[in-house]
């Protein structure tokens, strides 16, 4: 079974390339030897049952895993060929280029305007007009028309879906190249979910998106490529280690997967 890379002919330029990436929390190996490429201006979905390590893999792509005490990554995650876990790499710089949107909308307890302006301010971006950056980012996240008259109001006054789009606006304000989304719609209703999905299709023109989702229909709708992960008990002890089963074009994964476990999962037989 070839779990690996897409054929060169159908693979565009990779922004991020994972090679034998394993993630450990202390002695526990959460994810084992993931090898996959993230294509530029594509949406890549990571799917799989709970505990399969897809979120862990996502977080290892911009070194958010560093924040968990005892976590460790082996293998290489190459960003334009440079290993982001290299000795001379500053994780702050990595996160400026590879942004992240979280599962639960997490706006800062500040105004809508300040939420968006925060990133450009702390990263020292040279902007001629912060107002323009804020407007552009909110437009980019399809939120401008709803909030343009209340920019100075608290972000907590927005609905969950609006808050999540604000988080996306906040992320694109620092002009990253890649946006990682960790189940961005799991706390939202179907209408808000649909809006975020539409937004992703828009955003991929300018950004590269990696999304973790529990919702297979969502992966089928938005993703160009899909990676299916699962967890199996590691030899010797009961801990389950996640690994990549299959990574391919979404159409292939959902119509003609090459691995039985993928087929079982997407047809609802487990997970």
């Amino acid at each position, binding site marked *: 079974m070839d779990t690996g890379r897409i054929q060169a002919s159908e693979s565009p330029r990779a922004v991020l390339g994972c090679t034998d990436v394993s993630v450990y929390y202390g002695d526990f190996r959460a994810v084992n030897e993931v090898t996959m490429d993230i294509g530029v201006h594509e949406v890549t979905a990571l799917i799989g049952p709970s505990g399969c390590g897809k979120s862990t893999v996502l977080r290892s792509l911009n070194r958010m895993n560093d924040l968990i*005490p005892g976590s460790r990554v082996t293998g290489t995650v190459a960003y334009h060929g440079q290993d982001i876990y290299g000795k001379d790499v500053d994780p*702050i*710089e990595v*996160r400026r280029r590879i942004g*992240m949107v979280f599962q639960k909308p*997490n706006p800062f*307890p500040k105004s809508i305007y300040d939420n968006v302006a925060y990133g450009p301010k*702390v*990263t020292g971006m040279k902007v001629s007009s912060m107002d323009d950056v804020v407007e552009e980012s909110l437009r980019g996240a399809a939120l401008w028309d709803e909030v343009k008259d209340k920019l100075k109001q608290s972000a907590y006054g927005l609905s969950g879906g609006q808050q999540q789009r604000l988080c996306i606006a906040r992320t694109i304000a*620092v002009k990253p190249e890649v946006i990682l989304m960790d189940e961005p719609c799991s706390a939202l209703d179907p209408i808000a979910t649909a809006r975020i999905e539409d937004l992703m299709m828009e955003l991929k023109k300018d950004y590269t998106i990696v999304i973790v989702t529990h919702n297979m229909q969502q992966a089928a709708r938005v993703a160009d490529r899909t990676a299916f992960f699962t967890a199996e008990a590691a030899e010797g002890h009961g801990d389950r280690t996640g690994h990549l089963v299959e990574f391919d074009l979404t159409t292939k994964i959902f119509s003609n997967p090459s691995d039985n476990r993928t087929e079982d999962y997407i047809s609802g037989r487990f997970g």
Partner: protein
Amino acid sequence: MSAVTADQAMPRTPLARAAYGEKDLRSMGFLVVLWLCLAFGILVLAVLLVTTFLDGRERMDGELFTNYTSQIAPETAGARAAILGTAWVILTTALLAIPIGVAAASYLEEFASTRSRFARFVELNVQNLAAVPAIIYGMLAAAAAVAVGIPRNTVIAGGIALALLILPVVIVATREALRAVPQEIRQASLALGATPMQTLARQTLPAAVPGIATGTILALSRAMGEAAPLLLLGGLVFVKFDPNGFLSGFTTMPIQIFDWAARSQVEFQQLAAAASILLLVLVILLNGVAIIIRNKYATAR
């Protein structure tokens, strides 16, 4: 008894009031005991307040605020120097304890690895500090003042003693407040490329300010009533001048009250009671501010 199963514990109809609920005799008995304890505490406090007020009511006048203490004319003596001295010492205490306490708490909570030996050492010390008797801080501050060559009966020495005294409280309150800030806020900030320092200064600390302010104000109001550590600094009890700087001599209200209460004349007893009431009012006001800050932020969320 241990064999009570979930089945038995559940009332047959879920909405029925449980037979062993709050109306049970033992529960009622315990409730009465609790009420008696509460009543006893309040009663003691009330008696203390009322007797103090009765003793001091004749001296709750303007002269209490404007006049210095006097051996010759105790009937018109006042607590002016003590009031100003308290203000100076508490200000110094705040200036020392808040930055150091917040910085220490931020380090322990946001930066130190739980496995770091140094962090554990600091943590152990904070816990020990909290258990040290107040008077020891006075000795420490006196020694520190002498070591750097400043007189020990100065505002700065008093501030050091009281700052040491409340430092553990400030650190614990700040740590609690920082811990209450959702992890998502930190992650969001870091994911945008902010440094851990920027995250602390612009997100975590501002979000924790209400908790820090409440804890700190309560600690300061405790320091305000503290006499023991200051007495060890060579307690100036007969100050007839306004303190005018960190190196000025001083007295504070608890020290002044201590001195007055030890004198036999009735006028001084009255003065002590009047000054006690003033001190109580100040402490209640400070606690009130702390409560207002807490409530304001509780509703703002």
